[in-house]
């Protein structure tokens, strides 16, 4: 019997090539015009090269050529899912520089609107994230159903659905309508129901647990080193929220908790955000009770607002983390240097560290869990 000479080629004998998979800038998982080049070995990602800048509009340069009030509109367009939070930050920076004190009523209005805006942003996150995990648009629709309520409410107050341009140095542009309290309570009631819908779909769902638990774990030290902030940082177990750590505006008057996670994995990030929505509801309820009547704009403002020489780095807790505005004033009516510290920009820079070694499917949800807003990343 003739023997067959047969050897099985070992792995090292084959020339193999890494496959580069180009995800984006137009891909359902990238939440906007973001692109990443994945180097994959089978289904395992060995390298990630995030490429941003498709939406760079010079949002740092433009306000350097606008006066202080004109620039508010540009801040709406950085983090376009949390416009009131960005406006809140910028307006406070200008107030710090110019020494204006906003009126009591306007502070309450601002806090209520900013917290509602945080809820809309987190709803957007839960919706988009669940689409990444693979729910066929259902959680997305539920999230948008409630987000729509809040946006309608915002439209009744400011006239715009997304780019409000409503906060002003010294107060807000105009007073809220008379039925503000009732409408707000009504909206909050609906939101609470909506949150329980989202919880029903996501929390403790076996498939979500299997997908998200233990994935892309991040230690607190790593997160701090990468400059990660917001829910991602809190998911690692660190109780750090600028509203409590460095209370700005009137946040020190409200009672609320800082939800934290344990492992810093994807599931914790989702849970932290869902909890934060409930805490925001709490803040809004308290603020509604205490909101005083009175003027909504500080007295004695000048038509041309000039800031004395100085600089300020104002930061607020946005839904995605620390949103900061660094302003340098030279006595003119416009900032000399205007810098936006975008939370999702810093969070996104940790994407590579978080995702190498995971599956392609997982990189998609890791990216989703960062909750990027490309307007903020690219500015």
């Amino acid at each position, binding site marked *: 019997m003739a023997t067959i000479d047969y050897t099985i080629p070992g792995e090292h004998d084959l020339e193999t090539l890494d496959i580069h998979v180009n995800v984006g800038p137009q891909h359902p998982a990238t939440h906007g015009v973001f692109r990443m080049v994945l180097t994959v070995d089978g289904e395992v990602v060995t390298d990630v090269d995030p490429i941003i800048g498709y939406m760079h509009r010079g949002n740092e340069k433009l306000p350097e050529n606008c006066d202080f009030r004109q620039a508010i509109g540009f801040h709406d367009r950085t983090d376009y899912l949390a416009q009131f939070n960005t406006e809140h930050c910028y307006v406070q920076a200008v107030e710090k520089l110019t020494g204006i004190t906003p009126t009591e009523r306007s502070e309450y209005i601002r806090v209520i609107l900013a917290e509602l805006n945080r809820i809309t942003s987190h709803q957007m996150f839960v919706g988009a994230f669940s689409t990444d995990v693979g729910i066929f648009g259902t959680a997305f629709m*539920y999230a948008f159903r409630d987000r729509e309520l809040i946006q309608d409410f915002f439209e009744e107050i400011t006239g715009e659905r997304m780019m409000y341009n409503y906060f002003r140095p010294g107060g807000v542009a105009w007073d809220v309508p008379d039925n503000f309290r009732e409408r707000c309570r009504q909206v909050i009631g609906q939101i609470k129901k909506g949150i329980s819908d989202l919880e029903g779909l996501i929390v403790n769902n076996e498939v979500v647990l*299997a997908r998200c638990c233990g994935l892309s774990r991040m230690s607190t030290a790593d997160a701090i080193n990468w400059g990660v902030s917001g829910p991602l940082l809190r998911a690692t177990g660190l109780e750090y929220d600028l509203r409590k750590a460095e209370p700005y505006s009137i946040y020190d008057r409200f009672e609320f908790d800082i939800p934290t996670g344990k492992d810093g994995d994807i599931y914790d990030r989702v849970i932290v955000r869902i909890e934060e929505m409930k805490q925001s509801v709490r803040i809004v309820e308290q603020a509604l009770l205490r909101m005083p009547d009175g003027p909504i704009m500080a007295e004695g403002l000048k038509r041309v607002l000039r800031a004395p020489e100085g600089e300020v780095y104002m930061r607020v807790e946005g839904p995605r983390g620390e949103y900061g505005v660094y302003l340098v004033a030279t006595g003119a009516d416009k900032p000399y240097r205007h810098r936006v510290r975008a939370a999702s920009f810093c969070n996104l820079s940790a994407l590579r560290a978080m995702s190498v070694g995971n599956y392609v499917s997982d990189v998609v949800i890791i990216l989703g869990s960062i909750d990027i807003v490309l307007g903020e990343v690219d500015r």
Partner: protein
Amino acid sequence: MTFLLADNVWLDALLRMAIVGMLVPVGVILLTWVERKVIGRLQQRLGPMRVGPYGLLQGVADTIKLLTKEDVRPDSADRPTFELAVFVIVVPVFMAAVAVPFTSDIFVRNMALGLFYFLAVSSLGIVGFVMAGWGSDNKYALLGGVRAGAQLISYEIPLILSAVAIAMLGQSLSLYTLVELQDDTPFIAYQPLAFVIFVIAGLAELYRQPFDIPVAESEVVGGPAVEYSGIRWSMFQMGEFVSLVLISALASLIFLGGWIWPFSADNATWLQVVLMAVKTSAFILFFMWMRATVPRLRIDQLMALCWQILLPFTFLQIIINGLVLVYEWPDWTLTILSGAAAIAMGTLIYRVARRSGVLYQTSGATQRVGSVL
């Protein structure tokens, strides 16, 4: 077997084939509308409303659009593979439809090995997915094709084995006979475990949520179908929906007693049609409901579920059946044993998924284990 559509045998066969050939596309058109409407309602949307009353003609409009659309083929695609793939997907589906008796009268061919033929033919479609994935010369399609190959082949096994359990019970491979045997009690009462496994594996065979990994929208943007457009793409769609109907019909035949249960064996034809329609659409609606509710698993978790949970439990079902049949234990022991095993499987999945981050952990490149047990 009772009546002929025409006196001539050949004409009869031709007519039956024509019925299948006509009904299938019409059913697909209707089903796309149903699916969009059902998922729309589950998401508190209206769904299609524009074309016709309640958007009823939406499927027709879509079909016309798809037929008149430009047929785009990538320049670098492997032309024969690319163009053949859709046929390799659709033709086996039609071939499988031939063997399914929808009532005691309405079928194309009543085969003695109907169940065997159905399962054998319907697994041919996998080749089409791999061909489409490879032929498109697109990385997403390739990833999707590879995933489809792995997933569909794996889930064939629990699917077939759970059908084998039924065949053991009925001592026949003819679908007609299997239905006739369920005149007082449907097989689901004796085989709850096999039923659960059949439904899960059927979901995976249909690549619908939570097993839509090959076509995952947010990862591989449609997978093997990503480069297809117009009529070729609609053939993918047709293959998917016809398989949906067939798997649902098969499940209602072998588990729910087809056109017989809960009435007598000699129902009128209209009642048979109603019974089958109700049972089949129950499955179809359940699959759609799942689609709108459940997220997607990852490929390794999917494999682990198949090989480490479903497969052992299907063997368990077969062993149970064997014991009961060989030692001639009473029928209710089957119900109890199989039911207990089904509950055990559910508990296992529940516990396993909840042991968070241990089994499906992927921290770092070293510990990539898809192990469940």
